[in-house]
């Protein structure tokens, strides 16, 4: 296999990895906020349901969750699994898993907000939703960015777990090339890719943090 063929194969894997990463964040960040609000709601059923959900998501391995999401429809309902589902199973499993982690981060941030912010808003006539969207959430986001960054960095490395249901992301491709071509080069390339990916994400997160530095 020539270097250029190898690189183009790795390139495809790379795109899949980036796609998994991006889509997971796109779905899990808003979902996490909804879960956090449900977790803090006064409705006992909603509260306990989300509590259990979060505890399961955080208490079992992501790879296991991925297998359950992928094979579940077949084993539970006898639905045959189409190959197109593979990728979306990854996105689904990752999104609900990461939403649980993000939910706890949001909750910590929201609960750390001083009561005085709510009261000042209330006296000025802001409604509950205006208070949350305009006063509370922006400050919460600033507070939780460091914790979010940690999760986001972890997610980059977690994308390689998609290999367990044979989604051809970066790591899967590198492994296949290494065993068929008897070479380490693909692993080195994969390592460089993950490292650069991490680096870029860290830079982006840091710049977001800097942008929010205008107040304390």
């Amino acid at each position, binding site marked *: 296999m020539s270097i250029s063929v190898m690189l183009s194969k790795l390139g495809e894997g790379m795109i899949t990895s980036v796609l998994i990463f991006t889509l997971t964040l796109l779905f899990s960040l808003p979902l996490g906020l909804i879960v956090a609000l449900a977790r803090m709601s006064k409705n006992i059923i909603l509260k306990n349901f989300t509590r259990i959900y979060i505890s399961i998501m955080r208490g079992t391995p992501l790879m296991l969750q991925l297998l359950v999401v992928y094979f579940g429809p077949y084993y539970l309902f006898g639905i045959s699994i189409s190959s197109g589902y593979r990728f979306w199973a990854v996105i689904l499993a990752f999104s609900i898993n990461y939403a649980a982690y993000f939910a706890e981060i949001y909750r910590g941030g929201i609960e750390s907000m*001083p009561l*005085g*912010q709510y*009261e*000042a*808003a*209330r*006296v*000025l*006539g*802001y*409604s509950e939703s*205006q208070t949350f969207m*305009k*006063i509370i959430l*922006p*400050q919460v986001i*600033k507070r939780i960015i460091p914790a979010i960054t940690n999760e986001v960095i972890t997610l980059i490395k977690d994308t390689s777990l998609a290999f367990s249901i044979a989604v051809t992301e970066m790591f899967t491709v590198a492994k296949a090339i290494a065993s068929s071509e008897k070479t380490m080069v693909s692993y080195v390339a994969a390592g460089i890719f993950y490292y650069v990916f991490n680096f870029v994400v860290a830079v982006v997160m840091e710049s977001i943090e800097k942008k929010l530095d*205008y*107040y*304390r």
Partner: protein
Amino acid sequence: MEIFSIKNAKKSFENNLDVLQDISISVAKGEVAAIIGPSGSGKSTLLRCATLLEKMDSGELYYSGEKAAWNNEAGKTVYASPEKLRQIKSKFGLVFQNFNLFPHYSVLKNITDAPISIQKRKKDEVIQEGLVLLEKMGLSDKADAYPFQLSGGQQQRVSIARALAMKPDILFFDEPTSALDPELTGEILRVIRSLAAEHMTMVIVTHEIEFARNVADRIIFIAGGVIVEEGNAESLISDPQNDRTKAFLNRLQR
């Protein structure tokens, strides 16, 4: 004309009974009332009930004759509809002990956001008025600053401007100088004095007795959730009638 009145207010907390026991106060237009009393006597709770941050168990609440809360047949407080309460909220302002400015908003935005987005007033006008208010507070150069860049006294002046920007009929203050270093209290007291000179209707909870005596028309002494004594500011301080008032004032003067 009566701007504000609370009638027979009663309030208990789960673990703290009878924090307010039948308190009635009414304030006329242009009047300045000071509330004094020992720590834990219920002063903040009273202001919080007046400003709808806390619900009374029983009692009535009026702003400029409009009913915010009244008693049902069982003697329990019933509040007006959320719609009505929202409208009533623009009739009063509250200045907190620890300012509670919005840290992510500039000084000007702290002042103008609620009039623009809640009261739906014209943006240009509100900003113009906001700048005038800042000038009045001696903070013209701070419009674009953020709260963390200001001293405590400056932050408190911004929070007074924020309350005034809503054009309230009455302003409540809960110990507006207690969170400040002693050398910064003067600037706040000056601002409140100038508001009094403009006949702003105000209710001020304070530990600054001399200030209360100078600026207030009337002083209300509260202890243990009841009004123990009230009257003309000057005479209540110089010639208190009730023994508890005397003891309280003596303690402060020592």
